[in-house]
């Protein structure tokens, strides 16, 4: 077995791995064919759902068992011998979260050009990772991001960098925890929708597979599971999109094909925008919105009147011996009536806004920043830029991604690994905008204009999955018996899951897409849980509490902490916390504002010292959090209280510069860092 002197990769190892994964991909293809044949033979849909769910979860568990380890280096950084390409694949799976797999295409469908900010932001950030951070972390060759910061800045008792480490650990845990709750939540959602099990049961099923994997084998098991998960999620995303692409553009490569479809879609949009029936439906929504606005204006009398009215309706229905259905409806109207004037105001304002939104003509998909005035358009452009900025700088500071820089055999391999990471991410991310356009074209041309009596089955299926917040709603508003675009509403989360059915593919592909979504959520959750438990066990326990702990004890503690964190995260997710889910987008801003300045200045500016680093982290975090609390209605702020009209989600656009500025100013005002820290910077800058 020869070892390459530059890359440090053992040649035979790479070949062996490639062979394993080729076999694996072949076996997976056979599995798909077998399930497709079973479906032909009449296997029920529910069973297909079960089969995909349990087969993939069992697969991940088996990989976890095979890769079990108690060795510190294996457990924390997979023995530092993962070849660049496989490390890139694993990082890509780590990166592609449930949100990008399931909701992003739907988001692009709904938002058009604005949604592309997520594509740009979530890919462009890897330039910062590759050029500014990853190779230097690898040269440093320890275990976690706080390790690096503590060694670089020093300070605290004995110059071991205790305070810097503590802050970095807190940031790591805060960011990763909100993120992991969202992943586990998605696992529960997918499992419950495709197998019909209860939401919490779904969560704990997913948790079982995460645990077997990370608990037994740490980073090593996670890496090899993530490679397997990447292959599944790639196949699951490409097959339905390629199908739609062939159907509408006669070209199996969606990334190329949708260019020819975009002008057709634009033409169809223009047609629909001027359609009198569409205008009729929109006018009806506007009328309803005005109705709610009038009721809000007439509060509190309108609340009293509405309540009396609902009671009278019920009494009348009972008095005239109306059908059971009518009585039930009247009862429901009364029980769901808002309890107080304040409740009524919130509810009616919400309904007014929802109706107003549907009364607006659809925006052209490909047009950048449409707006009534130049200022409105400029504001949308600025927000687009701000979101891109936050996602990029957040990417370059997410601990579970940076942790991956440690797992390759050499600095050169780390650089190449970031290339492979972005390459594998792009295979999916360049397909997402294509899927949005293809699905939109399909819906605009075949669903819109069709007859209400002949609605496709997927519409009724998805409309009934969640009764409280319908994922798809379609109703004949103007009573002409024909579907208008304005009568159709779809949730961002359902587009990808419904794509196989929209394209008329067999149910086996739907099962595959669900398995893909599950793989995306599980792989990200794996990486995040490990980032959290490593921060707790390595940085807090070993480095701060008990530096004399034996390696055996460290790994055991790490495994126990992983278990605990996983159960806490699953418990929080099972409570369906709306606040945390809305915080996920904010996680990027928080990570960028807190960690990015200290990471980059730590490498590129020798003068940065530990007092500067501490104040920079605190200031970046505080500015970012303050802006979110101030401008986000979900967090108790006022949506009008913005700076330059920037959305609270993009708070990092203020936090990152504030952090950078504070590190520089405070460092310059305080003494130079120690000679040890200067020596370390020289060391990480020098080639191997």
């Amino acid at each position: 077995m020869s070892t390459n002197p530059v890359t440090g990769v053992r040649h035979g190892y790479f070949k062996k791995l490639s062979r394993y994964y080729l076999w694996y991909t072949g076996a997976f293809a056979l599995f798909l064919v077998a399930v497709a044949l079973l479906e032909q033979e009449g296997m029920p849909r529910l069973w297909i759902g079960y089969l995909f769910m349990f087969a993939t979860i069992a697969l991940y568990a088996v990989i976890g068992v095979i890769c079990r380890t108690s060795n510190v280096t294996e457990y924390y950084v997979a023995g530092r011998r993962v070849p660049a390409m496989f490390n890139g694949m694993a990082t890509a799976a780590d990166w592609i979260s449930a949100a990008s797999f399931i909701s992003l295409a739907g988001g692009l469908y709904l938002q058009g050009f604005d949604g592309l900010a997520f594509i740009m932001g979530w890919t462009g950030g890897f330039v910062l990772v590759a050029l500014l951070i990853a190779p230097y972390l690898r040269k440093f060759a320890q275990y976690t991001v706080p390790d690096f910061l503590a060694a670089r800045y020093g300070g605290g008792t004995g110059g071991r960098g205790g305070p810097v480490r503590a802050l970095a650990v807190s940031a790591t845990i805060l960011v990763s925890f909100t993120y992991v709750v969202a992943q586990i939540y998605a696992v529960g959602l997918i499992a419950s929708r495709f197998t019909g099990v209860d939401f919490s049961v779904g969560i704990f099923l997913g948790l079982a597979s995460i645990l077997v994997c990370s608990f037994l084998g740490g980073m090593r098991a996670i890496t090899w599971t993530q490679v397997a998960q990447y292959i599944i999620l790639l196949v699951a995303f490409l097959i339905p999109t390629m199908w739609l692409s062939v159907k509408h553009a006669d070209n199996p490569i969606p990334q190329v094909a949708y260019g020819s479809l975009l002008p057709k879609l634009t033409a169809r949009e223009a047609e629909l925008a001027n359609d009198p029936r569409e205008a009729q439906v929109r006018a009806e929504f506007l009328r309803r919105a005005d109705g709610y606005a009038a009721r809000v204006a007439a509060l509190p009398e309108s609340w009293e009147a509405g309540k009396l009215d609902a009671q009278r309706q019920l009494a009348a229905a009972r008095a005239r011996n109306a059908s059971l259905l009518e009585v039930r409806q009247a009862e429901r109207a009364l029980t769901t009536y808002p309890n107080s004037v304040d409740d009524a105001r919130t509810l009616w304002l919400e309904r007014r806004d929802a109706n107003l939104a549907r009364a607006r003509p659809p925006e052209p998909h490909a047009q950048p920043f449409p707006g009534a005035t130049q200022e409105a358009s400029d504001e949308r452009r600025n927000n687009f830029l701000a979101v891109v900025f936050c996602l990029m700088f957040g990417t370059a500071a997410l601990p579970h991604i940076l942790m991956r820089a440690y797992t390759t055999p050499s600095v050169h391999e780390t650089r190449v690994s970031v290339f492979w990471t972005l390459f594998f991410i792009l295979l999916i991310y360049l397909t997402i905008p294509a899927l949005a356009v293809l699905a939109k074209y399909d819906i605009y041309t075949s669903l819109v204009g069709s007859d209400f009596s002949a609605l496709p089955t997927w519409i009724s299926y998805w409309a009934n999955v969640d009764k409280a917040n319908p994922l798809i709603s379609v109703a004949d508003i103007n009573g002409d018996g024909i579907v208008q675009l304005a009568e159709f509403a779809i949730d961002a989360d359902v587009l990808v899951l419904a794509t196989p059915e929209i394209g008329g593919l067999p149910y086996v592909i739907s099962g595959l897409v669900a398995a893909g979504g599950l793989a995306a959520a599980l792989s990200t959750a794996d990486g995040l849980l490990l980032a959290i438990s490593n921060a707790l066990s390595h940085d807090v326990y070993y480095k701060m509490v008990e530096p004399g702990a034996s390696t055996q004890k460290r790994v055991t503690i790490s495994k126990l902490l992983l278990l605990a964190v996983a159960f806490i995260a699953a418990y929080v997710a099972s409570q369906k916390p709306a606040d945390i889910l809305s915080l996920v987008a904010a996680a990027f801003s928080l990570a960028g504002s807190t960690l990015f300045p200290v990471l980059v200045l730590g490498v590129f500016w020798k003068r940065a010292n530990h007092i500067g680093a501490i104040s920079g982290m605190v200031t970046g975090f505080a500015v970012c959090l303050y802006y979110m609390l101030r401008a986000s209605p979900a967090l108790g702020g006022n949506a009008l209280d913005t700076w330059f009209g920037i959305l609270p989600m993009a708070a990092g656009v203020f936090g990152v510069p504030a952090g950078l500025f504070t590190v520089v100013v405070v460092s310059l005002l305080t003494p130079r860092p120690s000679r040890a820290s200067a020596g370390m910077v020289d060391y990480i800058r020098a080639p191997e």
Partner: protein
Amino acid sequence: MPTEPTDDIEARLRLDHARAIHWDRTRRMSLLLLAVWLATGFGTVFFARELARFEVFGWPLSFYMAAQGASLVSVTIIAIYAWRMRRLDRDYHAALAPRP
């Protein structure tokens, strides 16, 4: 032995010199690549409305850049960086190799 200290100093100077050159080149290249990244990423969005008039392969240019172009530029930048850094690392080792 009077010659050894001078040797040591000479070796030390050579090492420092090679490191300085390597770091200087690394920094300059990173800066250049970041400038390209900034122009393609943020520049095309800033002027998206003006660029929407042009067309590439059926896409309006601004849509294409946001959906594919900027990401493809990013992956190219990372590839160039990894390739060039390997060259710089080799130059560094060549400069430090004992002279015949």
